């Protein structure tokens, strides 16, 4: 029954709370109006205990029994205020959200800052639809904690995280206070790069031999970029790097194909393939071309990009692929 009530409460608050539907932009302070508080199951047990203590005191006319009963009740009331204060006046700010490829997890960064003089303990955080919060933070006065909430992705496009719920039962566990926060952040999910995609569509028949010579032309390592395939990673170098001195993932970098004209044209792909498969293939090609530093032209529907390479070009292409055909693409 408790679960039913809780579910009902969750649905009900989700509806009528004006804040629940709107996005919270920028820094949000958990004000008094944003904190909800109800007794926990242990709190209900405590209420039962108080009733028993009171009846015992009345029945046996125990003057001190009344004292104990009221002291216990007062402690519970003070606990209620403390639980509320453990959450109130925290400042929430969303951190960066890096784009990911479908199938990976988006990492939403959430910064919880405590600018008060009160140390906060055992603050749980997770998306509201999770049954058990996965993250717990203790936030000392004047510092901020960074929580990373992971959301699995399946399809490309914009991913909007649900409401984030911060909750706490500290200090006595008799009450649970919580607050919702709907970050304005959304994550861009690129299409999943196709596994085993055909080779890059280099122009001309001679291109393939050239490519074969050039693509194996190991030219050193560069920093890892999202989407690099594990086969391309410079594992030897990664293993050598000491993570303590800021070791980063690196990928092998190949030279070759200079002067080639590479055009990645969505319409050139066989229409017998599903749109998503074609988008996947394009994604793989973009990554591959980028990893080889081949300038590539990009055509997707009305979008025509001149041959280029580099992070900005790649991002523009991937973004176009991610949002292709979606209604709310900005």
């Amino acid at each position, binding site marked *: 029954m408790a679960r039913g009530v809780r579910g009902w409460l969750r649905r009900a608050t989700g509806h009528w709370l004006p804040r629940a539907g709107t996005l919270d932009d920028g820094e949000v302070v958990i004000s008094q109006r944003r904190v909800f508080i109800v007794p926990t199951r*242990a709190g209900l*047990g*405590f209420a039962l*205990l108080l009733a*028993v*203590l009171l*009846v*015992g*005191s*009345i*029945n*046996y*006319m*125990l*003057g*001190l*029994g*009344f*004292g*104990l*009963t*009221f*002291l*216990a*009740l*007062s*402690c519970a*009331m*003070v*606990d209620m*205020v*403390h639980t509320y204060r453990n959450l109130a006046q925290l400042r929430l700010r969303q951190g960066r959200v890096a784009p990911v490829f479908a199938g990976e997890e988006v990492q939403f960064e959430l910064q919880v800052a405590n*600018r008060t003089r009160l*140390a906060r*303990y*055992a603050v*749980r955080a997770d998306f509201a639809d999770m049954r058990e919060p996965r993250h*717990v*933070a*203790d936030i000392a006065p004047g510092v901020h904690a960074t929580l990373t909430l992971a959301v699995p992705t399946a399809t490309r496009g914009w991913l909007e995280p649900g409401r984030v719920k911060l909750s706490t*039962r*500290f*200090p*006595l*566990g008799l009450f649970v206070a919580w607050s919702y926060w709907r970050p304005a952040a959304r994550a861009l999910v690129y299409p999943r790069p196709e596994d085993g995609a055909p080779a890059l569509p280099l122009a001309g028949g001679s291109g393939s031999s050239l490519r074969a010579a050039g693509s194996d032309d190991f030219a050193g390592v560069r920093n890892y970029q999202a989407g690099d395939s594990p086969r391309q990673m410079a594992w030897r170098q990664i293993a050598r790097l000491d993570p303590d001195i800021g070791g980063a993932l690196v990928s092998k970098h190949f030279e070759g194909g200079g002067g080639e004209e590479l055009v990645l044209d969505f319409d050139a792909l066989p229409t017998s393939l599903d749109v998503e498969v074609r988008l996947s293939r394009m994604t793989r090609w973009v990554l591959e071309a980028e990893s080889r530093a081949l300038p590539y032209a990009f055509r997707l529907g009305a979008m025509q990009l001149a041959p280029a390479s580099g992070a900005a070009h790649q991002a523009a292409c991937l973004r176009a692929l991610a949002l292709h055909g979606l209604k709310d693409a900005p």
Partner: protein
Amino acid sequence: MKLFDTPLTRDKADTLLLLASAVLVLAPHTAHLPLWVSLLCGATLAWRAVITLRGRRMPKAWVLLPVAVAAMAGVQFNYETLLGKDAGVAMLVLLVAFKMLEMHARRDLFVVVFLCFFLALTNFFYAQGIGTALLTLASVFMLLATQLSFQFTGVVPSLRTRLAMAGRTLAFALPLAVVMFVVFPRIHGPLWSMPGGPGGASSGLSDQMSPGQMSNLALSEETAFRARFFGRPPDRQQLYWRGPVLDFFDGLTWTRGASQASGRDLHLAVGGNATDYEVTLEPSQSRWVFALEMPGELPKVPGHALRISPQFELTSDTPVGQRVRYRATSYTGYALQGGAVLDDAGRWLLLPYGFNPRALAAGRALRRLSEPDARVQAVLAQFRAQRFEYTLAPPLLGRHTVDEFLYATRSGFCEHYAGAFVFLMRAAGVPARVVTGYQGGEINPLDGYMTVRQSDAHAWAEVWLAGRGWIRVDPTAAVAPERVRRGLDASVPRPAPFGIEALRGMNPFQREGNPWLLQLRNTASALNNGWNQWVLNYTPERQSDVLRGLRDKLFGWPFIGLLTGICLLVLLARFFRRRKEIHPIDALYSTLCKRLGQAGLARAHDEGPSAYAARVAGAAALAPQSRDAAMEFLRRYSAWRYAPPAADPRLKSTLKSLLSQVR
């Protein structure tokens, strides 16, 4: 000890804390529990401690179950029930101890803590003194600290910090609890009768008297009741607190006669000085209620219905199991059954056949005096003239108790005198009876309450004289006037502790002597009385008094004014605190922006200090000197704002001086 070489893990420390608070809750129960229960609990808790410290596994259920069943059987054997109050407490104590060995989830912690709260309450069945209250407060403190410790998920602060947190909770809770204690509506219990309700032997006056035996009441320092006088307390000689009236003498023992219920009309006329007072009767488990001779009307005792017997004894319908408070008004002048004839005079003249022949003869001889009053005075004069000794340790008497007392031993205390006097009076044909009760009382100068102790128990006589009614005659006063004027201590030396004469000076209850001890005793008594009056016996009647007083005090302009003032102060404090939240250097920056804005160079909302500085640099509206100062200000501000925090103590003053140059 290798035990504490390594720091304890968090789980272990928490469990030990829980054990400590359980020990604190269980310890006072050992005073009333059977020894084996205490030992079993101690062993169980020690076992749990060893398990925790050594990192052993908890015992399996099949180990615990037989022990628990055996313990239950033991309780059944010990108390012959499992349901009564005492048996229930014993079961609860065992339950808490065993639950310690069977804790797995966090839920179990709450179960143990809640059970401990309940056990703390049950301890009040047995003791409700100030010490118990302090111990319970300490237990609650430890329980809070324990419950708090289990709530941490990551960082766990030091034990001291956690204790401080629990202390803070308690400090906030205590005033709230006091307010609730005062205003929470009280009702008269019990709601229903609980099994094994108020029990235990009754204490205080008994309703029989055997002058041959020693009464242990005389030495008991226990408080019988306390009285508070509204006005000047009467003289000590007038302080006769009336209790059971004994009329039937079988030769050895005076008892209340069988025909007590015979409904005769009671005639009482009162006059003289009225004394208003309030009595707080200690629980005695007996039905007697005491008032000064003679109360004008029946006092109202909350929770009890009072009855008055034809002998003017006050009794309650139920034994006094709780402290009760009642007000009464008594008069020094009174006439009880003051008519010309006494209907049941024969009853007050009965004497046992075949006892005390000498006293009987002496009494008959008094009949030659025609006036009954003269016979009374003759016996009293006899008591005064002969060398009677007042002592609390008289020799034991044989068959003819009155004869032996009057003509052989001549030493005894109030019971002997009252008994012998009534015997003589009856033999002389004057209706007479023994009245027992308390005489005297000790005023505590600290709180003005008069304490009447069991050692103030007294027996005196009443004789009936035609036209005057029942007259109080205290033969003890004739023998040992000190006993009535100054109390027991003045009339007999108290026995030395353990019968060792050298220790006499150490008797802490010696009322005379060491003034420092007297002071201490008065303080303790006043403290105890205040506790009883305000905490233990805070009845619905007292509550309505207090609330009425509060209402009269609070609903006035001074209080409302004070309240408004406090609210204003709080609001002001909040306002200033909010203002302080802006960093002083940011405040300087916003002043600069305002000033530049007046010069036509308002900062755009999305403009950072550097961009702003660039715009200021190109502005012609400012004087060059002012512009340079503004740019320098912005440069420093930007450096401070975005650089890693490097403490420059002079930054604020530098910025201020730069700001003053911007016009």
